[in-house]
């Protein structure tokens, strides 16, 4: 912990050389066609392996996530998509017995580096969960601003931040008259957007969404998809979804994960239009056309 930023820069230069050939191949594959909104690589996963106990659940995943784009991760249940995104903000390590290998580079800095303050990583890489989970003991306003309190951050104008975050999450108009109501009084879809607003309040660079709409009705799903579209101009969004239409609607890039009984692997990644119209791998084609999974 003498000077973490310097250490990180040294590491960054040496890393591409040490990573395996397949990593580089996959990485360049993803890099080939940056979308129009791309601002550069925000988050890079390098050779991610993950274990629960002795069981390997993810093998050698390398993926680049471009700033200003939405990447959808699709694949059948149990293929390790959620595990993968949980390695991206170090939520993976909460599960007893969980282990990982590989590197996750946020702006070139490995988030698993020794001496890293994990709370700072999670401020930069926010997460929205499958089940809406507002804090029931807090009001709507307190929920949105909870991150500031939890991470002991200061802000100049709380009211402005509150309005901005709720606005960006597409919830402001529905709750502006009852900011002091409890978070639990909202509908499921509203709660989920409240959780998105809560994630935005700490100004993350990356937002991970783990099946954010799977517990919601179609109307709420639509609203959240609109929210994702809005947000994608200013941040990196990675969304895990079982809904292929949703992946097609909201994402710029799509990665297809698959497990043949063993650990999950990344079969193919590319621009969403290509994955859905001209997939290179037959397994991807079978999945996106609904022949299995």
């Amino acid at each position, binding site marked *: 912990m003498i000077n973490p930023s310097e250490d990180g820069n040294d590491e960054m230069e040496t890393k591409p050389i040490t990573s395996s050939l397949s990593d580089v191949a996959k990485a360049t594959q993803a890099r080939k066609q940056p979308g129009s909104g791309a601002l550069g690589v925000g988050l890079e996963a390098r050779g991610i392996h993950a274990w629960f106990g002795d069981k390997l659940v993810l093998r050698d995943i390398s993926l680049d996530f471009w700033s200003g784009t939405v990447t959808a991760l699709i694949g059948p249940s149990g293929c390790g998509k959620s595990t993968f995104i949980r390695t991206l*903000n170090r*939520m993976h390590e*909460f599960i007893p017995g969980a282990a990982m290998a590989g590197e996750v580079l946020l702006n070139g800095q490995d988030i698993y580096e020794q001496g890293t303050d994990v*709370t*700072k990583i*999670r*401020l930069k890489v*926010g*997460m929205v*969960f499958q*089940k809406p*989970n*507002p*804090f*029931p*003991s*807090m009001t709507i306003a307190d929920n949105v601003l*909870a*991150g500031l*309190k*939890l*991470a*002991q951050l200061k802000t100049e104008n709380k009211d402005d931040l509150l309005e901005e975050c709720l606005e960006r999450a597409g919830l402001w108009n529905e709750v502006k008259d009852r900011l002091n109501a*409890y978070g639990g009084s909202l509908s499921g879809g509203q709660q989920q957007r409240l*959780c998105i607003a*809560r*994630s935005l309040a*700490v100004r993350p660079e990356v937002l991970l969404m783990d099946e954010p709409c799977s517990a919601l009705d179609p109307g709420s799903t639509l609203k959240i998809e609109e929210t994702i579209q809005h947000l994608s101009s200013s941040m990196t969004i990675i969304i895990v979804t079982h809904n292929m239409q949703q992946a097609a609607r909201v994402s710029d890039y799509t990665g297809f994960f698959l497990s043949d009984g063993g650990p999950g692997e990344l079969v193919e990644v590319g621009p969403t239009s290509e994955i859905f119209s001209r997939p290179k791998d037959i397994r991807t084609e079978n999945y996106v056309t609904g022949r299995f999974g």
Partner: protein
Amino acid sequence: MSTTAPKAKPPVSTPDKREITTKPRFSDKVFRGVATAGGLSSLVILGLILIFLGYQGFQVLRSEGIGFITGSNWQVMQDNAGNTDLAASTFGIAAMLVGTLLCAAMAVVIAVPISVLCALYLTFYAPQFLKKIMVAVIDLMAAFPSILFGMWGFFILMPHVEYWGRLIHKYFSWIPIFKMEIPVFTRSPFVAGVVLAIMIIPIITSVSREIFSQTPLDRVQAAYALGATRWSMIRAVVIPYGKSGVVGGAMLGLGRAMGETVAVYTVLNLVYQINWHVLIGAGGNVASMILLKFGEAGPTETRALMAAGLVLFLLTLLVNSIANTIVSRTGGKGR
């Protein structure tokens, strides 16, 4: 409601609510009977104790009236034949009641913070092997015979607690309950409170740990995903969730502290005078008093002791129900 188009005002002619019933099977009936018997037996036992105490104590309560709980004298007068003269004797347990509440309250005040910290440590910080050992030890402590706590308190703890008492007196004597005119620190309510605190820590810890470990994982993860430190996560998620459980545990502890007999008897100097100054070596405790007097009491005095027991019983009931009301009012939120 109906498939035809609504004509006038449909709410006027709503049908009567149907009685919803089911015919239980024989096996279900049997089990229901067994469960009901088990459930009611505790109520029956409690009721019988209450009736017994009330019946035994009635005579004394009637002759003493309200003086039984407001007076502090306990004098047994005998007539010329050597029988107890109920009219001439006075029985008052005010000092004992005050002492009971004082010691128990002190025990809870000391025990709750320690227990909550212990429960938080066990749930969120302790390494797995240490956690197992500590949980076993704490459960053992909860089942420890109270006379051992009393003896340990008398021989080992008391000299230290007296020293703490001196310190408290030196620096906090401006607080009324820590004031004292005569510097006698031995066998004070403070000592009893500390011993009781040690006795109830395992109960409160165990209940708190249980509730903390049930904190919904999605809320914990939500907090961590927002960059929470462990401490800020605990403050924002675990404490609001577990608050009512901790209060419930504290109430269990309070109940035990109020009824504790032997341990208090060992370390407390019983004096028939209301004393709010916790550091002075003069206190009261209903249960210990009953123990003290029981061996040598004549028939009438025994009745008076039964009456004292009844009052203690009702006091415990009262305190617990007040506490339950507080829990149900403050609970709900945050869950």
